[in-house]
């Protein structure tokens, strides 16, 4: 059916296509030097690759309101069902078994497999912290036609002694974050930070029974964009529960931003096991608040083997075998992936040792932190890279094929040098100080 509009659309598309910037004589080898971007996490790096090739400059403008935690757009399914944490006074786990088992149970409960348009799967074995009492699992959610990555933080509990179990203390699928949760004297306060427009539903549940205590709906305006999220405060009184589960759900739109979900537990201070209380608080902060907003100094936490988390100013660098952050692809097996996350904001990239990736890894991730004008640059390099230096000649340590640097405002240039003496500039990043406009 032809309409008056169609010729205009055709003409517009022709004009736009004709005016599209196309670098002349791009050689196909440019493709072999690229990393396939890791789905939704890695587009910043895709830009970085090309900029690397032309030794260009990327300017990253820091968020204007640095008091607002970073947020990112992921999506998730319908959080139906009840998954109470159990008797939090005795710290009974929701299930006994491995973190993977408990996490799988959690995902099934929150996002039932019966929903034909929603499935989820754990992406990796648990990443344990140095105490072995906390674990982080990444999972992949496939709502509708998109794939997104979320994170579960779990806490090891032992009740009765010797019978270890794990509880899910936070779920973070990005796009929405819960922060500042406090349950004090029957009153719970907190904030939801989200950059996904739509109608958000906040529910507060008794963590022991799963019973709904209160619910509120909030309209998040269409103009909400990444980097300028809406921060919605909430307060619920007359709460008799000793621990509550706060959940935020925004179905958003199915075609654009997709649904988002966040969940955190917070408990009253009258717990019987103070040490556990501290653990809970700490872990909850990991996801809800970002522990790094208050702990600005670098904290390096290396775990063993190929699974490693390195924390530096709010950024977790997780090295995992395989692929994450995008649709599974059997061809990508055997790759080394680098994922950086911060309070739900994450990016990832992968490098393959089979020669299809870059001979010298020039793909670089950049992640902002909660601190003004501070970010992290990280990258995976193959064994052939002998050293990484910055423009001042400082050596950047390479650990397990990963290097990273915490950077401030200004321009930052890095060089890779291979064992045979080849040297290559990686990238120049510019961080514009807060309040300044990019050049």
């Amino acid at each position, binding site marked *: 059916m032809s309409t008056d509009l169609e010729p205009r659309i055709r003409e517009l598309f022709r004009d736009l296509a004709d005016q599209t910037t196309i670098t002349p004589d791009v050689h196909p080898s440019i493709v072999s030097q690229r990393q396939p971007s890791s789905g939704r*996490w890695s*587009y910043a790096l895709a830009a970085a690759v090309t900029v690397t090739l032309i030794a260009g400059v990327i300017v990253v403008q820091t968020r204007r309101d640095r008091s607002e935690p970073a947020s990112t757009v992921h999506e998730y399914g319908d959080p139906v069902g009840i998954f109470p944490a159990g008797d939090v006074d005795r710290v009974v786990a929701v299930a006994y078994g491995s973190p993977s088992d408990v996490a799988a149970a959690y995902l099934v409960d929150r996002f039932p497999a019966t929903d034909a348009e929603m499935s989820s799967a754990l992406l990796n074995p648990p990443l344990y912290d140095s105490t072995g009492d906390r674990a982080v699992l990444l999972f992949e959610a496939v709502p509708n036609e998109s794939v997104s990555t979320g994170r579960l933080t779990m806490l090891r509990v032992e009740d009765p002694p010797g019978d270890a179990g794990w509880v899910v203390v936070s779920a973070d699928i990005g796009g929405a974050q819960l922060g500042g949760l406090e349950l004090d004297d029957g009153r719970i306060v907190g904030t939801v930070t989200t950059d996904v427009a739509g109608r958000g539903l906040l529910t507060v549940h008794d963590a022991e029974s799963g019973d709904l205590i209160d619910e509120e709906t909030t309209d998040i305006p269409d103009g909400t964009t990444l980097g300028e999220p809406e921060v919605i405060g909430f307060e619920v009184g007359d709460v008799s529960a000793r621990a509550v589960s706060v959940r935020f759900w925004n179905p958003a739109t199915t075609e654009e*931003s997709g649904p988002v979900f966040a969940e955190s537990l917070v408990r009253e201070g009258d717990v019987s096991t103070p040490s556990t209380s501290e653990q809970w608080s700490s872990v909850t902060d990991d996801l809800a608040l970002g522990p790094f907003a208050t702990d600005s100094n670098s904290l390096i936490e290396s775990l063993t083997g190929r699974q490693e988390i390195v924390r530096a100013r709010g950024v977790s660098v997780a090295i995992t075998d395989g692929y994450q952050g995008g649709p599974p692809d059997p061809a990508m097996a055997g790759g080394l992936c680098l994922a950086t996350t911060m309070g739900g904001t994450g990016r990832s990239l992968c490098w393959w040792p089979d020669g299809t990736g870059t001979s010298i890894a020039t793909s670089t991730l950049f992640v902002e932190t909660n601190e003004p004008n501070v970010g992290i640059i990280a990258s995976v390099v193959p064994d052939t890279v002998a050293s990484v230096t910055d423009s001042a000649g400082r050596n950047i340590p390479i650990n397990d094929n990963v290097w990273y640097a915490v950077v401030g405002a200004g321009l930052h240039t890095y060089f890779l040098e291979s064992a045979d003496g080849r040297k290559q500039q990686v990238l120049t990043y510019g961080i514009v100080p807060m309040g300044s406009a990019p050049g």
Partner: protein
Amino acid sequence: MTGARRTVKNAKSEIAPFAVFFRTHYADTVRLARLLSGSNTFAEDLAQDAFTRVQRHFGRLDNPAAYLRTTTVNTCRNWHRGRGREAANIRRLGSPQIALPPEAAELSDAIKALPYRQRAVLVLRFWLDLSEADIAAALGCRLGTVKSLQSRALATLRKELPR
């Protein structure tokens, strides 16, 4: 000498198919990415990303052009949904801006505001002149969905745009 020449020939024969494919489709893929993403700045990145994905499967593809098209659609969708918004915070120095007449700019903005799949249907239909069946294949949806998406897109544009 002969041996060296043979080596070169063999090497070329291994890379030639993809190189030819790349050169044949590169410009149009960039244009497609530009129309799908609405970003002239990132169109080449998106196209190269799509080629990267295609290259990994190239030898096993029956119809690499169709696969490239679908991959470009998916790549742009992912960009649009997630990183594209972050990319808006990344400004490349010297990024060229395209100037359009006011009416065309208005239409362009209205199309950009459409949900991605609606926009993609318009691009695939009115720029690539694909059949509804091919559009359905590229989007991974049913034929009826294509009709519905196109209908909704045009209805929205008619509503948003002054006559």
